């Protein structure tokens, strides 16, 4: 099992989600985060105060997947989140020690396998 962590542009999120669902990736968590990835900072002015905004809004996705799902998941994110400009984000793939599904107590592979049939 792996944990795929992706940081993407918020305006690209709908496309990323669409690509993930098309790749049949169905379990994910997302947070709105702020970060800096080398993009040029924006300059904003409020009355006499001019500021450089060093942090940009991003969305961070966490997706727990079984090993053979890593490639399609990463491919979906790479293709959907890319604009070609600095600031498109990152994808990290992390090893995972244990996974439990809280509802059933299933472990590991079974816990990250989506339930497709209506239960």
């Amino acid at each position, binding site marked *: 099992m792996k944990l795929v962590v992706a940081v993407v*542009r918020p*305006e*690209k999120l*709908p496309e990323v989600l669409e690509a993930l669902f098309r790749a049949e990736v169905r379990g994910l968590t997302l947070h709105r985060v*702020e970060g*800096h990835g080398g993009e040029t*900072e*924006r*300059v*904003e*002015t*409020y009355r006499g*105060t*001019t*500021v*450089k*905004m*060093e*942090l940009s809004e991003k969305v961070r996705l966490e997706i727990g997947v079984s090993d053979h799902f890593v490639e399609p998941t990463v491919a979906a994110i790479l293709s959907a989140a890319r*604009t070609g*400009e600095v600031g498109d984000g990152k994808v990290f793939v992390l090893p995972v020690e244990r996974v439990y599904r809280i509802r059933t107590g299933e472990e590991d592979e079974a816990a990250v396998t989506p339930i497709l049939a209506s239960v």
Partner: protein
Amino acid sequence: MDKADTAWLLASTALVLLMTPALAFFYGGLVRSKNTLNTMMMSVVSLGFAGVAWALAGYSVAFGPGRWAGNLSRALLNGVGLEPQGTVPHVLFMAFQGTFAIITVALISGAIVERMRFGPYLAFLTLWTLLVYAPVAHAVWGGGWLARLGALDFAGGTVVHINAGAAALTAALVLGPRKDYARQAILPHNVPFTLLGAGLLWFGWFGFNGGSALAANGVAALAFVNTMFAPTATLVVWTLLDLARTGRATAVGAATAIVVGLVAVTPAAGYVSPLSAILLGGVCAFPSYFALLWRARTRLDDSLDVVAAHGLGGAAGALLTGVLAQAAWSGGASGLLFGNPRQLFVQAIGVAAVAIYSGAATFGLLKLVGAFAPLRAGAREEGLGLDVTQHGEEAYTRGEGAILVLPEPAPPPLTVPAAAPAEGSSG
């Protein structure tokens, strides 16, 4: 000169001016958070640009003498002084009419939010005030051809709402849909703003309709009361339609209903009985309600439904004025139900003429402005949002990661007169 009339018109002018910032809140709540300031600014700058254009030339084009439009004899407020215009000071009449020009051009912006560059918008709104609003106001209120034909428009159903609605339809078609339109869910980011805006619009509308009597008299009272009751009926019908269709009454729907009711009663306010106003308000919910359901399924990105609310609401109200006007209340004109079928025909001519002129002239103005600078923001700017890209500001900053940029040449240090430091000072 009448002191009571002057006092009421002074108050009304302030009330109508408030409607433009109110509209900024109404529209601002309906867009995505990244476009909040741009959307609100599209209304707010109208206070400046349409306001100045009105004083410099717009008033003269609207209310100066002339056949199709007023001449420039009143330009730069020439001859607009303290002498009476009717029973109020001329300068006050000019200012009251100016508040109408300001809100009308701001209404159009609802059709083109989240995608128009701000510079071309400023050029468009200024030209539109002078070349579309002012001539139409002249035709209906300035002694122009629609006035001579006998068209009834108490406070601006045609001049303000059909005019803005036709311009909005044209502008939405010329600009084209937003890049995310019909591809992603585009949701209102702050519905309480929209309800606040609707409430303030209703408050300001008492000056809009009540003030249009240009006197503190029975006609003003009738217009005021109708302004209260027509939207109440629209709100009831709209809520029932919502409940019948989905089982849930929506807040965005309620805010929209209030505006539709206000729009609909505007041409009728001083001509119909309060019961007729309630009937008119209720009936006018139907075309707007179903038009905006239909619109959302088309490629017409009239983003905030200016055509459905103002164009159709204004047209329905103007036509029903030709049905429900009653000499016993209006003191003159009657409509179809009260023995004057010709009035409905005259109303229809007014609606069609204003819609056609406004649509064609708006198309020409947008093409003219577009020849000098692109009207649309780029796809990347649309993605980032127009607040940051057009204004360099955000509606909801958190301040983390903001680094203060100090002014380059530091100002010379202030020469502080030598004084003994305060007792206990650590320095």
